[in-house]
C-alpha cells in the first residue's frame, strides 16, 4: 500500500517545543513586567536578593531570548525543515535529547541566575558548565537539521532553511568564541580577553546574537510560515538570495556600534557605523519581499488571526531595522547610548517583530497539529489589539524617556557646567516608566490570553500524523492522510 511507504513527519517534537516556548513566554514576560514595575516601585523586590532588578532583568532576557525564542526557533525549524525537504526528521531520538536538554538547561540557568551565578556579559550570562552543555545541544540540533537536509527529496534547499542554517552555524561560532574562559571554580570563570578586547568580542557576539538569533532565525520562520499561511509563493526569489548573502556578510561587521565613543579604536567604530548603515538595505529588501508577497491578498488578513500577527511583524521589523542603523550613526548614538532609547529599540524588535511573528506561527501551528480549528478567533483578535497597543505604548514611552535623558545629560549651562543633576533627570523619566509598565502589562495580558486559547485548542487533541507527499515533484504542501495517533515511526532507513 502506498501509505505503508509514506514518509511520516515527526510533529510530536514540534508540539512539545511550542508548548515550552509558550511557557517561557509567560514566565519571561512576567519577569519583564515585574522588572519594569521595580523601576517604578523599587520596594517590589521585597529586599529579596533573587528578586532584585539586576538578577530579574538577567532572568528576563535569558528566558525570553533563549527560552521563548530558542524553543520556538528549534521547534519551527524541525517543523519546516521536514516540509521543505519532504523528508522525516533525521535522528528523531536526538531531537528529543535536544528538547529535554534545552529545557533542563534553561531551568538550571534560571535557578543559577536567580542565585546570582552569572558570567557578567550581557546575553552570555550562563557560566561555563552550562555553556558547554549548550554547545553540545546546539551541535545536536545542527545534526538533526542538516541531517534532514542531507536526505531531502527536493533538489533545491528552500530559503527558510538558509536562514535557519545561518542561525545554527553563526550562533555556534559566536557562542564558542565569546565564552572562552578560564574556569576558577564550577561557578566562576575569567574570560580569556580583558578590558577593551573583551568588550569588542562581547559586542561582536552580542550584536550578532541579535542578528542571527533574533533576526536571522525569525526570518527563517517568516520565509516558511508567511507564504504557507498565505498560500502563495514568496514574491521575489532573486531578492531573497541577494538579501540573504548581504545579510550574512554585513551583520558581522556592525558589533562595535555598541561601543561608540568607548575606549576602543576609532576605526572600529567608524567601520561598524558604515556597515550598520549598509545593513539597512538587506533588512528592508527582506521586508519589501514580505510585503509584496502579501500584496493582493490583503483581504485574507481580516479573517485569519495567524496571518495578522505575521503580517504586523513586518512593519515592526522595518521599524527596528530602520531605527538600528540610525542609532549606529555616531552623532545620534551620542544621545541614545546608555539611555532608554536603546531599550525602546530592543523592544520594538523583540515585541513587534520576534514575539508577533512567533505568535502568528503558533496560531498557525496549534490548529494544524491538533487537527481542529483555533478555539477562539475572537480571543486571538483581542490578543492582537492588546499586543499592538502594548508594544506601541512601550516603545513610545521609551522614546520619550530616552531622548529626554540623552539630551538632558548632555545639557550644559552658560558656565559650561552640567545643568541638571543625575537625580533630577531620573525623576523626570518616572512617568514614562509608568507608561512602559502599562504597555508591558497589556502585552503580557495578550500573551496570557493566547496561552489559554492555544491550550484550549490543543487540549485532549492527538497530534495529527502528516506524511510527506508521495512524489518529490509534488508541491511543498503536505498531503493530509488518515490522522493517526502518536505514531512516531522511526525514520525511513
Amino acid at each position, binding site marked *: 500500500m502506498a501509505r505503508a511507504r509514506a514518509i511520516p513527519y515527526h510533529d510530536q517534537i514540534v508540539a512539545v517545543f511550542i508548548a515550552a516556548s509558550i511557557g517561557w513566554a509567560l514566565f519571561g514576560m512576567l519577569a519583564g513586567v515585574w522588572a519594569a514595575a521595580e523601576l517604578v516601585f523599587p520596594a517590589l523586590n521585597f529586599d529579596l536578593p533573587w528578586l532584585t532588578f*539586576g538578577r530579574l532583568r538577567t532572568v528576563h532576557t535569558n528566558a525570553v531570548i533563549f527560552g521563548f525564542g530558542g524553543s520556538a526557533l528549534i521547534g519551527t525549524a524541525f517543523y519546516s525543515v521536514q516540509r521543505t525537504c519532504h523528508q522525516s526528521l533525521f535522528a528523531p531520538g536526538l531531537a528529543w535529547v535536544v528538547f529535554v536538554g534545552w529545557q533542563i538547561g534553561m531551568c538550571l540557568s534560571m535557578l543559577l541566575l536567580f542565585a546570582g551565578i552569572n558570567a557578567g556579559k550581557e546575553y552570555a550570562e550562563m557560566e561555563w558548565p552550562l555553556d558547554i552543555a549548550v554547545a553540545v545541544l546546539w551541535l545536536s540540533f545542527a545534526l538533526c537539521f542538516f541531517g534532514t537536509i542531507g536526505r531531502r527529496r527536493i533538489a533545491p534547499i528552500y530559503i527558510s532553511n538558509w536562514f535557519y*542554517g545561518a542561525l545554527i*552555524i553563526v550562533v555556534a561560532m559566536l557562542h564558542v568564541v565569546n565564552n572562552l574562559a578560564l574556569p576558577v571554580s564550577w561557578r566562576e570563570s575569567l574570560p580569556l580577553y580583558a578590558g577593551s578586547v573583551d568588550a569588542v568580542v562581547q559586542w561582536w557576539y552580542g550584536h550578532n546574537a541579535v542578528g542571527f538569533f533574533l533576526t536571522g532565525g525569525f526570518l527563517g520562520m517568516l520565509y516558511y510560515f508567511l507564504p504557507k499561511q498565505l498560500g502563495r509563493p514568496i514574491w521575489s526569489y532573486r531578492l531573497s538570495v541577494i538579501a540573504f*548573502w548581504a545579510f550574512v556578510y554585513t551583520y558581522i561587521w556592525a558589533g562595535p556600534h555598541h561601543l561608540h*565613543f568607548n575606549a576602543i579604536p576609532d576605526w572600529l567604530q567608524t567601520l561598524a557605523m558604515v556597515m550598520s548603515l549598509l545593513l539597512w538595505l538587506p533588512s528592508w529588501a527582506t521586508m519589501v519581499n514580505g510585503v509584496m508577497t502579501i500584496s493582493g491578498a490583503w483581504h485574507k488578513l481580516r479573517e485569519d488571526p495567524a496571518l495578522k500577527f505575521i503580517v504586523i511583524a513586518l512593519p515592526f521589523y522595518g521599524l527596528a531595522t530602520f531605527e538600528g542603523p540610525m542609532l549606529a550613526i555616531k552623532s545620534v548614538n551620542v544621545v541614545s547610548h546608555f539611555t532608554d532609547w536603546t531599550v525602546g529599540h530592543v523592544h520594538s524588535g523583540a515585541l513587534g517583530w520576534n514575539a508577533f511573528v512567533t505568535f502568528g506561527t503558533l496560531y498557525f501551528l496549534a490548529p494544524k497539529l491538533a487537527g481542529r480549528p483555533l478555539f477562539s478567533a475572537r480571543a486571538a483578535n483581542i490578543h492582537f489589539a492588546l499586543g499592538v497597543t502594548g508594544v506601541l505604548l512601550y516603545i513610545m514611552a521609551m522614546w520619550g524617556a530616552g531622548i529626554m535623558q540623552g539630551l538632558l545629560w548632555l545639557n550644559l549651562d552658560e558656565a559650561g557646567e552640567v545643568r541638571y543633576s543625575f537625580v533630577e533627570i531620573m525623576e523626570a523619566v518616572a512617568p514614562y516608566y509608568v507608561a512602559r509598565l502599562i504597555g508591558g502589562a497589556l502585552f503580557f495580558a495578550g500573551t496570557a490570553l493566547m496561552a489559554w486559547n492555544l491550550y484550549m485548542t490543543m487540549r485532549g487533541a492527538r497530534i495529527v500524523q502528516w506524511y510527506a507527499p508521495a512524489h518529490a515533484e509534488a508541491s511543498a504542501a503536505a498531503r493530509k492522510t488518515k490522522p493517526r495517533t502518536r505514531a512516531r515511526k522511526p525514520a525511513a532507513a
Partner: protein
Amino acid sequence: MIGLHKLVERRAGLLIFGILLVSSIGGLVQILPVLFAPPPQSSAERYPPLALAGRALYIRESCALCHSQQIRPLLAEVRRYGAASRPGEFIYDRPFLWGSKRTGPDLQRIGGKYSDAWHRLHLTRPRAVVPSSIMPAYPWLAERRVDGIALQARMRGMRRLGAEYTDQEIAEAANAVAGKSELDAMVAYLQFLGRGGAPRQ
C-alpha cells in the same frame, strides 16, 4: 551570482561552508587586530584582594545593568563624571563591566567621591540618602561574609592570565578578608574604582 547560488543551494555542504566563510570575514578583520595589538599604555593597578572580592559581588548583583563604567570623551560627560575612559585602565577587567545602560550614574570614577559610611548607608538603604532613588537596596551585603577560598581561586586565575599576584599575596588574601562582610568588599571595590585614570576634576 544567481548562477553561483544555484549551485550552493543544491549542495548542503557548500551552503554550510559558504555561510561560515561569509560570516567570519567581518569578525576576523575586526577582532584579530585588536587581539594582537600591543597592550595599551597603562598605569592601572591590580585589584587588591578585598576590592577583587567586591568586584565579583558587583557581577553577582548585576550592578552593571544599571551603571556604566565608561566615560565618553564628551564635554558634558567629563564634567559630570571625570576624565574620559582610556583602554589602559581596563587591563585587569575580566570581564569588562562597561555596561550599556545608565539607569543610575556612571561609576568609573566613583572612588573617593563619597565616604565609606555614605556608601554603606546608600547600598543598604538608598532611599535614606536619595529619597527618589529607584536603586534596589542590598541589605544582605552587610550580613554575609566574603568567601576567602573563592577569592584565592580567582586570584590564581587572574595570575594565570597575567595579573602578577605573588604567592604570598594569594596566601594572605584569605586572612586579609576573613571576617569582612560583603558590604566591606563592595565599598572597597567602589572606592578603588577610577585608579589609574585622572582623578575627578
